[in-house]
């Protein structure tokens, strides 16, 4: 089964660099998402793995096979890489029925008639599209077209499945259903999935590992919860999580014992790193506090004013004013707060992040308290 290795992959379009010296190893059986804002090079990376795009530099291995190398002049064509590719616009063949769309590739692979029919029946059942077998794509809804596209891609049982924002054309409800189905599909097939998306929730909920890209540069490549809990830099912290993380600029005022004193106007915080780090006084830092790490509590030492309150039923998202600082807070449970009311707040848990202001890199994770 394939493990995919990208070594120093660079892709230039004229002068602009789409992907910049990317090293990436995708383990066999993994579900890896390539995540990032539009134009970050994620789709280009996926297409280079597929062999639909030719890298400018670097090497790509699928399994033990070198499929691309700019130096050795190797470029294995897409059809020889044993992949399945799911396109954003489905790319169903409009002049073929659902049945034909699914079987066309198999006929081409010289499968026997009975094998093809068997596989077709399996897929129709698996994707719940039995009743549409003889319809044309234009007679199907978006969700149904997507199912057909997935069935077509799965037909030849590819060991590696590449997906380019396959759910972005679906409505929210359908998207949730399809997410669950894709995850199930991954478990059932045991294939390696590489999935491109700009939707961080999709990336978080689906993948075993997230590869976060920005302007063609790799930002972080970790498990979703790791990305969430230990973002490598400010960009990653900000990109992942909804509602987004609170990032507050702070000055380091001094160290006392294991605590680092931070100050921004009237707001003072003591940060306790999980491991000893040396951060000199006067350094500019950014503290990252996830919304669920701030708690409304009578014992809280800081006092904030409710600016807005958005109750969702399961939780309520609050926008607080702490002096000049704005904070997003998630309160779990069905609860609402009147605008303008004063509440005491405190920080909980060990997941508070401290970043260097200048480089944006993560300095440490730890706990913190208002003073």
């Amino acid at each position, binding site marked *: 089964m394939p493990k995919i290795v990208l070594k120093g992959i660079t892709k230039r379009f004229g002068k602009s660099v789409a992907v910049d010296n990317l090293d990436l190893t995708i383990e066999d059986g993994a579900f890896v998402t390539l995540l990032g804002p539009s134009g970050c090079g994620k789709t280009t990376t996926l297409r280079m793995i*597929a*062999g*639909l795009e*030719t890298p400018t530099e670097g090497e790509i291995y699928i399994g033990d096979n070198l499929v691309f190398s700019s*130096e*050795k*002049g*190797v*470029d294995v*064509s*897409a*059809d*020889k*890489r044993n*992949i*399945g*590719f799911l*396109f*954003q*616009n*489905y*790319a*169903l*063949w*409009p*002049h073929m029925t659902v049945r034909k769309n699914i079987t*066309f*590739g198999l006929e*081409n*692979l010289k499968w026997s008639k009975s094998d093809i029919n068997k596989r077709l029946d399996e897929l129709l059942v698996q994707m719940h599209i039995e009743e549409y077998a003889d319809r044309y*794509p*234009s007679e199907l809804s*978006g969700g149904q*077209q997507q199912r057909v596209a997935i069935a*077509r891609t799965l037909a*030849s049982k590819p060991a590696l499945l590449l997906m380019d924002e396959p759910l972005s*054309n679906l409505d929210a409800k359908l998207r949730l259903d399809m997410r669950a189905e894709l995850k199930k599909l991954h478990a059932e097939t045991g294939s390696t999935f590489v999935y491109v998306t700009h939707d961080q929730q999709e990336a978080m909920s689906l993948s075993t590992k997230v590869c976060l890209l920005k302007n063609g540069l790799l930002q972080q490549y970790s498990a979703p919860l790791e990305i969430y809990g230990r973002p490598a830099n400010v960009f990653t912290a900000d990109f992942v999580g909804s509602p987004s993380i609170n990032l507050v600029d702070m000055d380091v005022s001094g160290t006392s014992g294991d605590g680092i004193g931070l100050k921004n106007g009237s707001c003072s915080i003591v940060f306790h790193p999980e491991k000893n780090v040396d951060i000199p006084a006067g350094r500019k830092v950014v503290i990252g506090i996830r919304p669920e790490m701030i708690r409304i509590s009578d014992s809280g030492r800081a006092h904030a004013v409710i600016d807005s309150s958005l109750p969702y039923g399961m939780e309520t998202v609050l926008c607080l004013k702490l002096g000049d600082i704005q904070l997003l807070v998630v309160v779990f449970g069905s609860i609402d707060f009147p605008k303008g009311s004063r509440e005491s707040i405190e920080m909980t848990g060990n997941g508070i992040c401290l970043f260097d202001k200048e480089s944006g890199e993560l300095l440490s994770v730890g706990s913190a308290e208002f003073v």
Partner: protein
Amino acid sequence: MAIRAYKVRNFLRKPQNIILLVLAIILSYLVLVPFVYILADTFSVHPSEIMRIPGSRVGEFTLYHWSKIFASADSYTTFVQPLAHSLVCALGSCVVAIGVGGIFAWLAIRTDMKWKKIMTTLFIMPYIMPSWTLALAWNNFFKNSLVGGVPGIFTAITGISTPNWFAYGPFPIIMVTGLHYAPFAYILIGGILRNMDSNLEEAAIVMKTSKFRMMFRITIPLVTPAVLSTFILVFSSGMSSFGTPQFLGLPVKYYVLTTQMYRNLNGTNPGLGYAIALILIAISLAIMGINQIILGTRKSYTTVSGKSSNFSLMKLKKLRMPISVFMLVFVFIITIVPLVSFAIESLVTVPGDYSLENMSFRYWTDSDLALTEGVLVNATVWRAIRNSVLLAVLCSVGAGTVGCLAGYAIVRRWGAKLSTFVNNLTFIPYLIPSMAFSAIYLSMFAKSHGPIPALYGTFALLIIIGTVKYLPMASRSGVNSMFQISAQIEEAAVVMGVPWWKRMTQILIPIQKASIVSGYLLPFTSCMRELDLFVLLYTPSSILLTTVLFQYNSKGFDQYANAITLIIILLVVLMNALVNKLTGASISKGVGG
């Protein structure tokens, strides 16, 4: 070195690269090399010019032709005035063609106008007919006695004598040429209107944009590329059109560049003719350059994705009936009425007398006439029919196939230098006036060059020149249709290992069947009615219907000429219907329907 070899191998592994490479080589020879010949011809003394250029010998270098055009007392009459006439006629034709074709396309595709099926079928007719037959029809109706001869049907019926400006000169030339190319505008603009994602317009509707505003701010900008393509095609056709200005301009001595060129090529001053041909080509090239600059920045809107959508027809409401009736009458006048005039003119025994007693089928069926046998019992006419059909089939197969492949390769490698080069090569033949093109091929293929034998007098030469000349239509339609298929549609098959020829024959071509078939049909119909291109190259054994018509027409055999015109139109319409039946696609269905 090894890496270079790999690169070459990887390059050649892609079929689009091989197609581009092969086309670049072959078309360079058939399209670019003629320019060298034509250029050399403008600088050398031709046999018939020895008397004009004192002390010269045949083949000698001379600046005589160019100085005569740009720097002599005759410049105005030999060049400047015909140039001005050409520009006026070409621009006027563009306005008529785009206006009439565009409005018709919009009515036929986007509104609930009645009788669409019959109208769209009929509307293509002027394009199927040679443009100079429409001129012939104009003449049948509106000719007056001021220039000499008997007045036309209009005068015979109403008693009103038509003024010269209406019967001859720029006005009828513009109308006839414009109406002839209106179907082209309809095909190109209609193609976009039909395939345009209606979300684009609906997006504007939801924003409470008025219908009027939407038309001007959304619909028209989206069809701008199609309008521009129509413009350059009609403009260059107008500039190089020969038959119509010859027919409608000559009686009042109204010369355009092409008729001026013909006069010189056929007269005693061929070098001057070649020089004018070069200028014509240069003008067309300049237009294409401008077009490329404009379109280059906003070249393509992918209007068809893998997702399907439908648009709703605009309701004409109270105007539905008046507009439908008006359009039907209009379409009738430009299509059926000319045919009726040919039929009538082929029946009258004594010209100018349109009474029933004066009509008979003698010019069709009698074999003992004073001039020559009636057209249906005439061996020459039958041979010409056979040759014309065979030539049209071969040229359309050649041009259609090459155009389809070229379109595919050009779009897949869009933006690459080789692709741009081939794209331009496939279009250049359109810019070379037919008459000049055939004159050059005549001299180019008179002798053998290396492995290429002397082809003059062979049917093969007619096939080659026809294929090359009609390639632009087919390659345009190939490029347009390939642009409309999102690349993902093919990539979905690529990753499954579907080989290239199978992707072409089972996915790409079937999806764009209609427009690809029209890439075959356009060359076919053009070839059936072509005169200018073949008139210098045919021999008695390769005589064509149009050249028979030309002979009869210049001999004043009016009834025969009108009868043969009818035969040509009938054959083309029949062929269209046949292809329509066989493939379920046609020129009109490609866009209207």
